[in-house]
């Protein structure tokens, strides 16, 4: 079984993955052979046209940067198709404001969520309303924000990454179609358990260093955020972002070390001919870029410290912390740089020594076609054996239980509780949320049920209530709501249940086509009205 600690999604096992951004080694170099070969070609006597004239290698990178702006353009164009009420909003300006707030809050405890975006955007929307002579409306603002966030998140395509196609010219002078995939904004898990809106590294780089290269680099994005926060004077956030950048750098280092370890352990798992040398080169280039940026952050931090006044003690401390963390990253990167240089020799030696067959990197499975269907085709016993082996991986580890003698004695001494015989399997429900059950029914159904309840006498059997409602021609959804209200009112002294209370009638059975069981005596109070 392939059990890579980085999940087999690192550069080695999955080279052609454009969507993985956090540690992508400038993916453009992979898909664009001209980058590496363009200049060499000049000296080749056979090539008639100088390719660097026809298609300079840098052009592809620049093109790819531009492609990242197309979804924003798409938002703007879709204005024409939108309803007339929203047409006076400038979605490009608004989308940039959304990116601004989510990037600005990155790393903050109160990272931006939908609510924050609404709060920030409402004044802007109101200003646009005013110019257009429209009265501001919360409902319309919400609708517009939905469209903006949905557009940036690519809700239209099931929140998949945006996919933009483009053409470049390869070494042979042939035009080639490529597809670039990237995200701008996504729903992310916040450590606190909330759902937050987070910009992709591409969005950060696009926004903070517009049209600079290397849009796909997650670490570059983290460091760009630190730079931006330092410049904006948001020092505490800069500390947090610097920590994030450090975590990224630790992960990057772990990933590289893991690759080195895996390679030594299992030659088949890596592609020695192309992938490993490329990964090493890319990692080296990446590290060199990081070191440059980290030096510039350090410089900026030192400058800040020089000009800061003594009464800004907190800010001084924060900036000093940013500097310290960045210095730590710098140190780590310098060390890793040395290790990588050493590693290259290790690889070259090993390559020379070992007989190897280049192994195509292991593709990721399409779970439905490559796993589910083959298993369904298998005969029952081996299929069951297979799913039994795979099963634990989907649910995660379960701590085994040990017997506690103390606990056992306590358990044995406690009085035996009678176990009610259950004929029907009880489905677990979230009993606390009564309203959610009711909200499943449309308002008119709920209103009809209330009316029938209010019309009933003070004390009435549930069976009668249902029978009367049925004869009055109510649909079964209304009957369900009546039954639901009666059940919610059962044994609920301390709960607000809309003025409906009910208790069992000994021995009486309810046998309605809709439900059966013990009949209830329903009392309709004032609150029902």
């Amino acid at each position, binding site marked *: 079984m392939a059990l890579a600690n980085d999940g087999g999604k690192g550069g080695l096992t999955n080279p052609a993955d454009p969507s993985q951004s956090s540690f992508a080694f400038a993916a453009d170099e992979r898909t664009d052979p001209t980058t590496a070969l363009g200049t060499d070609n000049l000296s080749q006597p056979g090539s008639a046209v100088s390719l660097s004239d026809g298609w300079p290698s840098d052009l592809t990178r620049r093109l790819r940067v531009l492609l990242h702006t197309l979804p924003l353009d798409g938002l703007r164009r879709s204005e024409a198709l939108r309803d007339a009420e929203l047409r006076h909003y400038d979605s490009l300006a608004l989308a940039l404001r959304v990116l601004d707030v989510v990037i600005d809050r990155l790393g903050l405890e109160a990272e931006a969520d939908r609510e924050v975006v609404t709060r920030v955007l409402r004044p802007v929307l109101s200003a646009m309303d005013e110019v257009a002579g429209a009265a501001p409306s919360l409902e319309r603002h919400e609708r517009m924000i939905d469209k903006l966030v949905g557009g940036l998140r690519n809700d239209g395509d099931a929140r998949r990454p945006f996919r933009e196609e483009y053409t470049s010219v390869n070494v042979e002078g042939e035009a080639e179609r490529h597809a670039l995939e990237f995200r701008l904004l996504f729903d992310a898990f916040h450590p606190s358990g909330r759902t937050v809106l987070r910009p992709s590294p591409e969005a950060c780089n696009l926004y903070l260093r517009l049209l600079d290269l290397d849009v796909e680099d997650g670490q570059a994005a983290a460091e760009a955020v630190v730079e931006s926060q330092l410049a904006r004077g948001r020092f505490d956030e800069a500390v947090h972002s610097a920590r994030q950048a450090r975590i990224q750098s630790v992960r990057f280092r772990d990933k590289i070390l893991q690759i080195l370890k895996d390679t030594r352990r299992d030659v088949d798992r890596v592609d020695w001919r192309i992938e490993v040398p490329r990964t090493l080169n890319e990692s080296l280039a990446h590290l060199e870029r990081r070191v440059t940026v980290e030096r510039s952050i350090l410089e900026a931090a030192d400058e800040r410290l020089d000009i800061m006044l003594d009464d800004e003690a907190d800010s001084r401390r924060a900036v000093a912390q940013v500097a310290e963390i960045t210095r730590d990253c710098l140190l780590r990167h310098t060390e890793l740089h040395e290790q990588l240089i050493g590693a290259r020799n290790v690889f070259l030696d090993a390559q020379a020594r070992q007989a190897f067959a280049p192994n195509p990197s292991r593709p990721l499975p399409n779970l439905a076609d490559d796993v589910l269907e083959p*298993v369904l085709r298998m005969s029952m016993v081996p299929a*069951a054996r297979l799913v039994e082996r795979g099963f634990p991986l989907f649910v*995660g580890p379960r701590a085994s239980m040990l017997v506690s003698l103390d606990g056992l004695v306590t358990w044995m001494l406690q009085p035996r509780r009678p176990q009610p015989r259950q004929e029907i399997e009880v489905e677990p429900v979230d009993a606390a949320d009564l309203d959610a059950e009711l909200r499943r029914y449309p308002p008119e159904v709920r209103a009809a049920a209330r009316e029938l309840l209010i019309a009933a006498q003070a004390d009435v059997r549930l069976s009668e209530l249902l029978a009367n409602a049925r004869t009055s021609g109510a649909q079964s959804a209304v009957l369900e709501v009546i039954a639901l209200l009666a059940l919610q009112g059962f044994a609920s002294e301390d709960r607000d249940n809309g003025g409906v209370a009910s208790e069992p009638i000994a021995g009486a059975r309810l046998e309605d086509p809709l439900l059966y069981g013990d009949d209830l005596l329903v009392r309709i109070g004032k609150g029902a009205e």
Partner: protein
Amino acid sequence: MTGTRDPVWHASRLVQWGLRPLVKPVQEAEYRELVERYFNDGSFRATVRELADGLGLHVLDVSEHGVVLAPQDDSIFALKPADFRPGSSKVDDRLLDGLAQIAIAATVFPRARDLAENPDIMRPPVSVDEVEAQLRQICERLSAEARRAPDPNAEDERRGLIEAWRVYMQRLDTLETRDSRKAMRATRRVIEFSLDRLREFGCFTQVRQGATAAWQPTRRYQVMVQQLAGTAVFQLVREALEAPHSASSGGA
């Protein structure tokens, strides 16, 4: 107090936090400090990994969201389908529960490349119906393919030689007592049960999507499937297919 303890003690504390899927570092100061230490201290990281490995656990991910562990093959921490559904020891129940797990993962990650995405990005929630449809459509297709072939005889069935999809379809048939809606309910219950149990393991949360219930995968679940379960179960399938004997002889 804890500062004086041996680093191994701290490392084992971090592993035990990882075995509590519902606890997050944000709620527990000690957990938070240990995660921080994991990032800052290289030898501590190595100790945590060695310790987990010795216990039969993979460390899939450590972040401010917590530690994500996965059981190694034959680990004492591995939860088998038989323990998943207490009180049932039938092979077909275990098979269906396993199929439900794969179908859930396949619905959360419909494309191969989804497995390579950043696990911090929330996947859209899934519903029981979507998972059921995923499973049933494949079974119906396989059933249509097999229409010309003779039905399996009773002896084959007894020896477990019938294909897995027939087990699923039989579950549809045997429970088709009154109307076909009832039958759907039976297979839906298998899936709903699985999702509900996954919720107990911190793998899903239940959310509302309009009028219906939907299940939101947690980051932990995404990490587990993306980093290990997806490729590992694929590898198991490949191994099984490359060994044609075990696939056709019913493992006898």
